[in-house]
């Protein structure tokens, strides 16, 4: 046998394992889909918490993104369980957690948290908020749309002042209920990881809190992105007080989130348990790009500096918008990297604390990159359809002024 072939097959069969791994840690069980799942739920919780700022805490500058936030949260919530279902492989069994609830299983109980958040918080709030418009559209529209809106009214067509006041009050109460629900929804995801006592990378009481704040960061950044891009696509001027306020909140949220993560890190270092060596080794080798470069430098420090300069410095609005957009994009990269580092990082080192393995992301297939991309694009498609059916745009938006066309002869001269 050709020695070159033998060596080649030796190295292809030999996986990138350093040190010692237990046989069941050799390949990762939780793939990129489990990274996508907390990323999506984080966006849901973050977008909803942002909406609550306008509704409950009366931050009027955020009014242009209030409804858009609710629809975004709903679009992402509808897709959030799909990565789990795709990963587990038996989607039909998901409903069994409602039929035979297992109160001792945190994962089974999440089904109820999810259902509560979907049915009682988001759908109800959107319904109360849109009800007067739905009733009006049911009267104005024709054909299938008329039927659609009529169905959405659920037969409640009362548009009296008293009824509208009740809608408003109910919406506010639901938002108040929704805040702890959003905390629970995403705090739960952190809790699932944080309560794995055997895994020193996950086991931390700070985990739910860190998850929650990173969710708020990602949600605000997402709304900044969605609002700016949707305004540009619809050729509408961007409401600067609104994006300034979003950028300000984003700046503070990143600051708190980063401080919490730093606190967690410092405490781990100080505590210096027996796992610290393998974790340091993992950070400096396997997670260097995703943690140090993507999460900390690109996803946290650069946006923080950019947002700080753009929000509190002096510069033209055009430049400011550009920086906000870039910062929001980088934050998304950073938060995705955060999820990646938690989920994948927690499986890269051996529980013997003596070795590191490698995660090989497959391209296609149910647990592959393509599935992850499709799952992350789907909420935007749903959001697009929703904004067509339930337009969230505030009245009085101005078109972007079109520059006057140059005179024909001038064009000719220039050419």
């Amino acid at each position: 046998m050709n020695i070159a072939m033998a060596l080649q097959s030796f190295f292809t069969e030999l996986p990138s394992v350093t040190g010692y791994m237990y046989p069941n840690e050799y390949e990762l069980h939780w793939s990129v889909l489990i990274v996508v799942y907390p990323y999506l739920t984080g966006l849901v919780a973050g977008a909803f918490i942002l909406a609550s700022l306008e509704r409950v805490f009366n931050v009027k500058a955020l009014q242009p993104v209030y409804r858009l936030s609710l629809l975004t949260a709903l679009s992402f919530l509808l897709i959030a369980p799909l990565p789990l279902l795709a990963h587990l492989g038996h989607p039909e069994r998901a409903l069994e957690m409602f039929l035979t609830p297992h109160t001792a299983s945190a994962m089974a109980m999440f089904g109820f948290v999810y259902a509560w958040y979907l049915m009682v918080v988001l759908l109800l709030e959107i319904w109360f908020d849109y009800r007067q418009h739905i009733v009006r559209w049911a009267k104005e529209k024709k054909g299938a749309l008329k039927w659609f809106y009529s169905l959405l009214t659920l037969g409640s067509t009362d548009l009296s002042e008293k009824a509208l006041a009740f809608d408003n009050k109910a919406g506010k109460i639901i938002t108040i209920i929704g805040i702890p629900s959003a905390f629970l929804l995403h705090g739960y995801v952190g809790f699932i990881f944080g309560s794995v006592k055997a895994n020193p990378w996950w086991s931390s009481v700070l985990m739910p809190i860190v998850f929650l704040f990173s969710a708020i960061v990602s949600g605000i950044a997402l709304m900044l992105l969605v609002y700016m891009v949707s305004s540009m696509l619809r050729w509408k001027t961007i409401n600067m007080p609104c994006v300034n306020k979003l950028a300000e909140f984003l700046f503070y949220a990143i600051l708190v989130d980063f401080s919490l993560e730093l606190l967690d890190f410092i405490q781990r270092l100080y505590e210096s348990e027996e796992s610290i060596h393998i974790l340091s080794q993992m950070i400096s080798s396997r997670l260097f790009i995703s943690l140090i470069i993507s999460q900390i430098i690109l996803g946290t420090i650069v946006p923080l500096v950019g947002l700080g300069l753009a929000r509190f410095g002096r510069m033209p609005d055009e430049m400011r918008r550009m920086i906000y957009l870039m910062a929001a994009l980088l934050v998304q990269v950073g938060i995705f990297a955060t999820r990646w580092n938690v989920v994948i990082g927690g499986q890269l080192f051996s529980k013997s604390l003596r070795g590191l393995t490698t995660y090989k992301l497959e391209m296609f297939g149910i647990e592959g990159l393509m599935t992850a991309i499709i799952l992350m694009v789907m909420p935007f498609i749903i959001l697009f359809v929703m904004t067509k059916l339930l337009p969230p745009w505030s009245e009085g938006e101005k078109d972007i002024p079109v520059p006057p066309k140059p005179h024909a002869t001038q064009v000719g001269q220039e050419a």
Partner: protein
Amino acid sequence: MRKIPQQLIPLAVLFIVLLGVLVVARQLFVPKTFGDLGHYRATAVDEVAAQPAAYAGYRVCLDCHDDIYQRKQLSSHAGLACETCHGAAAAHATGESDQLPTVPRGRDHCQLCHGYNSARPTGFPQILSNMHNPGEACVKCHDSHSPRMAKGNGECSACHQMIANQKAVSSHMSLDCTDCHTVPIDHATQPRVVQALKPNSEETCGKCHARGSSAGAEVARIDMAEHGGRYLCWECHYPHLPEAKL
């Protein structure tokens, strides 16, 4: 009495309907004995218990194959049950079937445990299939009921581990170091003073590779007078890994 707001009524109806659907679904789909013993269907236990046993258990094998069992118990395979390699044998043991249990004679079965995997403990015997006597059945060299390295070169490999590793995956793996090398007894204690000798003629290789040698049919034969001219064998072939092309 205050009037209930109109919009609450359809919502309440909707939620009651959803709850109703859940209650009906529970009645229809949750098995009657679910939860009697734990968070599962209690009758599932009886159903599983009623399934015919496919495995007989090693004690049944002992009745007829005691000699093999005793040999196995003295080896490093002591912890393996007979049916781990020979498959489910209940039908054979009870005489229900004339079919004998399977005997894995290929290369795949042994590799379930002995194929190289970095996660296996250090020192556990592992091979890279395409480098370790490719094409040969494991049982040709190893007795699975009393497995050990086909031939031990423990004394030499203590110092010459790299060569031993190469030879262990080559077609020369069954040769002793002393088949080719003359090793004075003092070499072990004074390796630099008393050196082991390398073969200095083609006859050493010719013992197996010359036409008319008594080695197995699978060993390559050459005409010692014609092949290689004035060169010695190891000037072109590397004896510790003859498969390697120099």
